[in-house]
């Protein structure tokens, strides 16, 4: 029988080979057998051509005589084919998309640097609101799986220059991997909900431009009626493309609108300097900082660098005794406020008065005292303000006054003026041109567009990115009525969202990990965005979309970007520096090889580029361009492209003349971006949705933050927690000028919120975000207006009937209730710098049990002496609570590195979230005027006497020789006893099959070095054991011990403030050992004799003694 089969296969092979050479003698062409004259179905991969071949039929008859009929009978065969086709399609990336024929070719030559199983890192840049975060992306066999910060980038250095590690990133960059693989992304160009090829779109646009017969159309009218609406454009190339289009079609218009814009900062700069500027701060030199509502530690384009410098200036380790002092005056509690030494929360109506009072007290140059209002005006006690201004004046030249983007232009202007008069400009505060290609007032721009639409002047609207239907202000809403006045609407975005629904054409946008582009970081340094993967779907980048409206409508993004920089260099060519000649190489080669190397020389318009002309691109001679380009791609930035510092003079007279904004009564509604999902663009990202918001620990929802007194006034009960971690909260209705938020608004009693001020976060209430983001929370855009986008006063607020369930990861009341005082539990230690420096004795009396008090043999695991041949590693971690700002980046980084699933709102309500590292937050003091919250990241403590280990009946959690508390998923049967017995409650259990095992794209996303856990097993922080093993293998191959800082955990590498330090505690010179030797070092619950390997350094605050005395 088997003999027979053997013959069969041989027969078939011979026949096929014979048939092949008969039918098509061309060598190399594969299987061109069309014996029946029928064209094979193109979507078959391997069997297709065989189906109808007589040889194949003969083979089938011999091999499966009973099945042969199926192939003979056309009807039956089709059914069979259909089923086969369906299952093939299902097995592919996505069932509903036409699959292009794939060539499956094994490597003949192994690609350079590519070793199966070894990850490669490529430099690119993630963007939020256009501003770059330079990143290194890990690529496992061509799949981007993890984002790291780019420490080569001049803006993001590591404190320890020896460290080969990565630099920080924020939650958005970390979570962008999930967005790349989001199955809800739109996949093909759509015309009125029907799949169309890209070429059809190009054709239609060309027709619209040129008219059906090649003349006429929009081009004949010089582009009148053509409108582009983009988000803030920072990309130099994109701006140049737009400029070219506008040059060719002078009547066309380009509008920019983004809900979170810097209009106020721009107006403030215009007020102060007469021109828009980009302000850069140097926190590493700032000894006194006053933030006027600026959340520069979490919601600011330069936050990563600022947080790093800020923390470095406050780091009290290794004998350093000085730290900067941060004052925060703000309206709603923020991360920056939580980290302040002095924080005052005041009503927005009093904000300007307070800032004017402060400004006049620090004696603005050129303004008579009293011009700005009385000194020390506002609600803050005069003594405090005096002490504050004295402190600032004593530190002229080493202080920073920073105003938040949400504050009024006057506040910005006053901040500029104060910086000028304190002598900070040029020392801690720098001004450059704006990093936006065209700095415009975006509200104004949107207003113009809306007016044009309403007056019927728009024929073709191209919306490039953004979701204006959802996020435009209520008075300038690009809603159905308005959009339907336009004949042809094009939407370019990653999702078919609210806007995409209303447009004729929807073009899927590429993710930054699959497209070429360029962008700038907060100081203007240009990064080239290079793709790590071919677009997963038929997506196009914005460059390719805009190219459609130029002469080169089929130009590839790669050519567009590269040609732009080639020209820029040729045109600029000012400085020829040796640096560009350094060839690329080393650990990060250019991604994507060199596609379309032989493309025609650029014929793009020679018009000078708008903003980028100012940028001093280091130029090279023509021949060097390739190596320069490769070097820039490898490094992840173009050197010397930071915008030059310019000198501007503040005109405080102008400010003085601005009348004070009158305060209005009623409730003030303050708008803020959501700390997790920003303005709504990350709505469909499960990692971000489930990320507990730093101050409230709410997930999956936004809530109206109210002060305890306002809650009483509105008759909102104290939220009782009934089940799991559900919080049943009362709801309110918010309306303003006849507009009402349609959903009921859940309230959240926020300690430290000023009375009569209600803070709402943008980004929720999405209808068409995708399966993850739909229908969570309420839509605050419904009452937002263009004239005052961050604040409305005089809103009507009333209690609504019914309660709402918020899912929080930390019970709200125990963040503040005094009966659970933290002092009492000695969990989180914070003291003042003065106390710390004075005290020589340990004031905490934690009883750490001695050896005689334990039942366990202390010699059982002798980590100090692991034997002569052992490398003697003992892994440990130290977390400096003085550095941690509570930004949550560690949680997302861990989720990405360790394949941690998202569980959804209902499961979070039941306390089943899966984060391996959480950031606990505790307030101190009375709810009306609390300190903090103080943050405490809690990963697994890796106790030496781990309480989880002896209780496991099956040895599923065991101790490694190097002190890791290992979890053996395969062995776990799920008794949950380990979690019950864990005093830190860091263990996480798969109550259901939380991992998505089916969605193919998610399979691409996962870190191949970490097991994907199944249902019914316990999991927890491993100290990134896969990274430890990689480091050890590397060291072993090179026959050396692991260097300090060589192995860094995911949470450590992402931390903007370098609060988390991991390493070998058997090495007394390692950073972690030195940190643990600090006097501030303490272990959590050490009186339980758990001997945690993770320890904390007590937080420090540096209050102004004058204010502390007064208070």
């Amino acid at each position, binding site marked *: 029988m088997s003999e027979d089969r053997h013959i069969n296969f041989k027969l078939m092979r011979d026949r096929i080979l014979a048939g092949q050479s008969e039918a098509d003698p061309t060598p190399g062409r594969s299987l061109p057998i069309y014996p029946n004259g029928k064209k094979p179905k193109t979507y078959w991969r391997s069997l297709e051509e065989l189906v109808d071949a007589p040889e194949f039929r003969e083979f089938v008859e011999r091999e499966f005589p009973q099945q042969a009929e199926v192939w003979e009978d056309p009807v039956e065969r089709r059914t069979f084919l259909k089923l086969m086709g369906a299952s093939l399609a299902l097995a592919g990336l996505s069932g509903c998309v036409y699959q292009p024929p794939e060539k499956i070719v094994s490597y003949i030559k192994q690609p350079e640097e590519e070793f199966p199983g070894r990850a490669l890192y490529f430099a690119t840049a993630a963007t939020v609101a256009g501003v770059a975060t330079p990143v290194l992306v890990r690529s496992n066999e061509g799949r981007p799986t993890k984002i790291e910060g780019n420490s080569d980038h001049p803006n993001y250095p590591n404190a320890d220059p020896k460290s080969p590690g990565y630099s920080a990133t924020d939650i958005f960059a970390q979570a962008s991997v999930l967005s790349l693989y989001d199955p809800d992304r739109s996949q093909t160009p759509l015309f009125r909900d029907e799949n169309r090829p890209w070429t059809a779109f190009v054709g239609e646009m060309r027709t619209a431009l040129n008219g059906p017969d090649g003349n006429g159309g929009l081009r004949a009218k010089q582009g009148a009626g053509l409108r582009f609406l983009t988000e803030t454009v920072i990309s130099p190339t994109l701006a140049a493309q737009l400029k070219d289009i506008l040059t060719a079609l002078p009547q066309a218009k380009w509008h920019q609108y983004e809900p979170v814009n810097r209009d106020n900062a721009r107006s403030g700069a215009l007020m102060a300097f007469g021109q828009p500027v980009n302000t850069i701060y140097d926190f590493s030199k700032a000894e006194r900082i006053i933030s006027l509502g600026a959340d520069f530690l979490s919601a600011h384009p330069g936050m990563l660098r600022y947080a790093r410098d800020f923390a470095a200036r406050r780091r009290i380790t290794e004998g350093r005794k000085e730290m900067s002092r941060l004052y925060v005056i703000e309206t709603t509690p923020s991360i920056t406020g939580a980290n302040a030494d002095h924080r005052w929360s005041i009503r927005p109506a009093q904000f300007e008065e307070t800032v004017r009072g402060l400004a006049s007290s620090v004696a603005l140059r050129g303004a008579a005292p009293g011009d700005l209002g009385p000194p020390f005006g506002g609600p803050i006690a005069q003594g405090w303000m005096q002490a504050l201004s004295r402190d600032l004046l004593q530190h002229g030249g080493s202080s920073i006054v920073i105003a938040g983007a949400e504050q009024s232009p006057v506040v910005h202007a006053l901040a500029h003026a104060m910086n000028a008069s304190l002598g900070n400009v040029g020392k801690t505060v720098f001004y450059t041109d704006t990093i936006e290609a065209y700095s415009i007032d975006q509200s104004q721009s949107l207003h113009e567009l809306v007016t044009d639409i309403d007056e019927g002047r728009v024929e073709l609207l191209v919306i490039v990115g953004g979701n204006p239907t959802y996020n435009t202000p209520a008075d300038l809403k690009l809603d159905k009525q308005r959009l339907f006045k336009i004949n042809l609407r094009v939407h370019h975005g990653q999702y078919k969202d609210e806007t995409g629904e209303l447009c004729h054409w929807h073009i899927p946008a590429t993710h930054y990990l699959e497209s070429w582009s360029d962008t700038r970081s907060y100081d203007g340094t240009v990064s080239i965005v290079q793709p790590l993967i071919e677009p997963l779907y038929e997506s196009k980048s914005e460059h390719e979309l805009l190219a459609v409206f130029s002469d080169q409508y089929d130009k590839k993004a790669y050519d567009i970007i590269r040609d732009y920089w080639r020209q820029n260099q040729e045109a600029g060519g000012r400085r020829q520096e040796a640096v560009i000649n350094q060839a690329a190489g080393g650990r990060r080669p250019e991604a994507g090889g060199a596609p379309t190397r032989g493309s025609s020389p650029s014929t793009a318009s020679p018009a000078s580029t708008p903003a980028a002309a100012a940028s001093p691109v280091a130029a090279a001679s023509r021949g060097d361009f390739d190596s320069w380009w490769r070097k820039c791609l490898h490094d992840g930035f173009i050197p010397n492209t930071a915008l030059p510092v310019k000198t501007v003079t503040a005109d405080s007279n102008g400010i003085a003349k601005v009348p004070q904004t009158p305060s209005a009564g009623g409730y003030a509604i303050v708008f803020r971006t959501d700390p997790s999902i920003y303005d709504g663009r990350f709505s469909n990202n499960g990692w971000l949705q489930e990320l507990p918001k730093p101050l409230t620990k709410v997930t999956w929802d936004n809530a109206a933050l109210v002060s305890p007194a306002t809650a009483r006034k509105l008759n909102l009960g104290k939220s009782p*927690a*009934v*089940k*799991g*971690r*559900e919080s049943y909260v009362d709801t309110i209705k918010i309306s303003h000028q006849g507009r009402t938020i349609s959903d009921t608004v859940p309230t959240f009693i926020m300690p430290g919120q000023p009375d009569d001020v209600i803070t709402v976060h943008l980004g929720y209430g999405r209808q068409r975000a995708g399966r993850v983001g739909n229908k969570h929370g309420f839509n605050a855009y419904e009452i937002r207006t263009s004239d005052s986008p961050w604040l409305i006063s005089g809103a009507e607020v009333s209690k609504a009937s019914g309660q709402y369930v918020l899912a929080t990861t*930390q*019970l709200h009341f*125990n*963040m503040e209730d005094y009966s*659970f005082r*933290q002092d*009492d*539990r000695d*969990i989180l230690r914070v003291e003042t710098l003065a106390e710390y420096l004075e005290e020589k004795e340990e004031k905490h009396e934690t009883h750490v049990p001695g050896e005689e008090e334990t039942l366990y043999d202390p010699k059982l695991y002798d980590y100090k002496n692991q034997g002569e041949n052992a490398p003697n590693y003992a892994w440990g971690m130290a977390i400096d609570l003085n550095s941690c700002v509570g930004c949550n980046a560690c949680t997302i980084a861990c989720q990405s590195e360790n394949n941690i699933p998202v569980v959804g709102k209902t*499961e979070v309500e*039941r*306390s*089943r979230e899966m984060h391996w590292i*959480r950031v*606990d*937050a*505790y307030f101190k003091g009375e709810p009306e005027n609390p300190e903090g919250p103080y943050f*405490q990241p*809690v990963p697994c403590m890796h106790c030496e006497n781990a*309480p989880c280990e*002896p*209780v*496991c*009946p*099956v*040895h599923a959690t065991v101790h490694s020789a190097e002190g890791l508390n290992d979890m053996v998923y395969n*062995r*776990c*049967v*799920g*008794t*949950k*006893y380990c*979690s*019950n*017995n864990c*005093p*830190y*409650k860091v*263990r*996480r*259990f*798969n*109550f*259901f*099959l939380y991992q998505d095992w089916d969605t193919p794209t998610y399979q691409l996303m996962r870190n191949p070095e970490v097991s994907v856990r199944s*249902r*019914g*097993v*316990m999991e927890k922080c491993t100290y990134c054991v896969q990274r430890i093993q990689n480091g050890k293998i590397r060291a072993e191959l090179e026959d050396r011990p692991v260097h300090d800082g060589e192995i860094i955990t995911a949470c450590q590498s992402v931390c903007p403030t370098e609060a988390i330090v991991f390493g070998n505690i058997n090495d007394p010179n390692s950073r972690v050992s030195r940190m643990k030797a600090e006097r501030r070092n303490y272990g*959590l*619950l050490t009186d*339980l004799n758990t001997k945690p390997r993770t320890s904390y350094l007590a937080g420090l605050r540096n209050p102004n003694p004058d204010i502390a005395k007064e208070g």
Partner: protein
Amino acid sequence: MPDQHHSDAPHHTTVPVIDPGMTFASVTDKISSIVLKRKTPIAWFVGFAIAFMLFQLMMLAITQLVFVGIGVWGVNIPVGWGVDILNFVWWIGIGHAGTLISAILLLLRQKWRTSINRFAEAMTLFAVAQAGMYPIFHLGRPWLAYWLFPYPNTMGIWPQFRSPLMWDVFAVSTYATVSAMFWFVGLIPDFATLRDRSHSKFFQIIYGMLAMGWRGSARHWHRYEMAYLLLAGLATPLVLSVHTIVSFDFSAGIIPGWHATIFPPYFVAGAIYAGFAMVIFLTIPLRKFYGLEGFITMRHMHNMAKVMLATGLIVGYGYIIEAFFGWYSGNRFERYMIWNRMHGPYATYYWALILCNIITPQFLWIKKIRGNLLWLWVISVVVSIGMWLERFVIVVTSLHRDFLPSSWGMYQPTQWDWSMFVGTIGFFFALLFLFIRFLPMISIFEMRTILPEAEVEE
């Protein structure tokens, strides 16, 4: 009620443990006729049908659990154990009375035990069967439960003998085995009686096989007595050990509210307390329904009530000492634990427990209440509920707020938790109904030994 006058009887010492009118023949007749002759009453069918339906609910709950995941229950982090483990402890507790009555009272030569021991043993077995399901199904991956047994395997791994859960496996399985053997050995002479008296060929064969060739010879009796005594001796320490080890599940942990040295005696007393409450709860309707007042007399009721009172007092002492040590330890977490029990979100459960388990049994000091079957029955119900609450307080309130306030949570059982619990009750009663229908619920031959006829002059 015909029994009411018994309660008026002045001295229970004069109340006999068997009706004076009984003879060897009448005893055998009366007990075996329930199985062999009497028509199965409609009420039995109704009761069995209800119990069997609830048993089906349990099967549904288990199916749901195994196919969907343990997340259908209310357990979470921090409360990793909920009503699953609570019910395990509760059922195990109920399963204590049987062996205690059979073995310890046998060794102590308490003749009054004879009429209730068979029934109590059956109850024990069935309760342990319910209890035994929970540790298996509370696992995240119940199909791997056998990993808890030390069997030779290719993985080369033993279970971890330091884990109290491991001890549990041995304690409960040993207890179940010995109880089953004890019960079965005790049944052998009665199986023979049933074999001999049965008129149906089928039952003759079945009972004959179960009787294992019992012919009642002196040698048989001799060996029987020896075996029974040995088993009683074996079972006696088990009564104490099982719940001691079950209490280790908690006291070996470091969670405030669990980590207490008083747990073993306190758990054993609680188990006997709960077990006797359950025996009373079942006996009262049963003896009424089957007219067994002659066998299970008021003396039994009084004795059982007294055992309940005594163990209830020990349990009450346990509560007081727990609170005392919470305060006396000076440990902030222990103090908070006690405070939280009394004032926290589950305070209702705690105070209900105090009411059920400490206040209610005090009524048993009063002889009139002990003699009043209705009151006794109500008290036994209250105590059973109280013992359930006790386990809730220990398992859930200790876990839901431990050391770090950031990880505190709440626990709410879901419908599937309740389905499983109600289902086990159904299963328990279904087994019990089968037992009273097909087996002699009172030991025939032992009852004969306590008749005046059996008094042989030395």
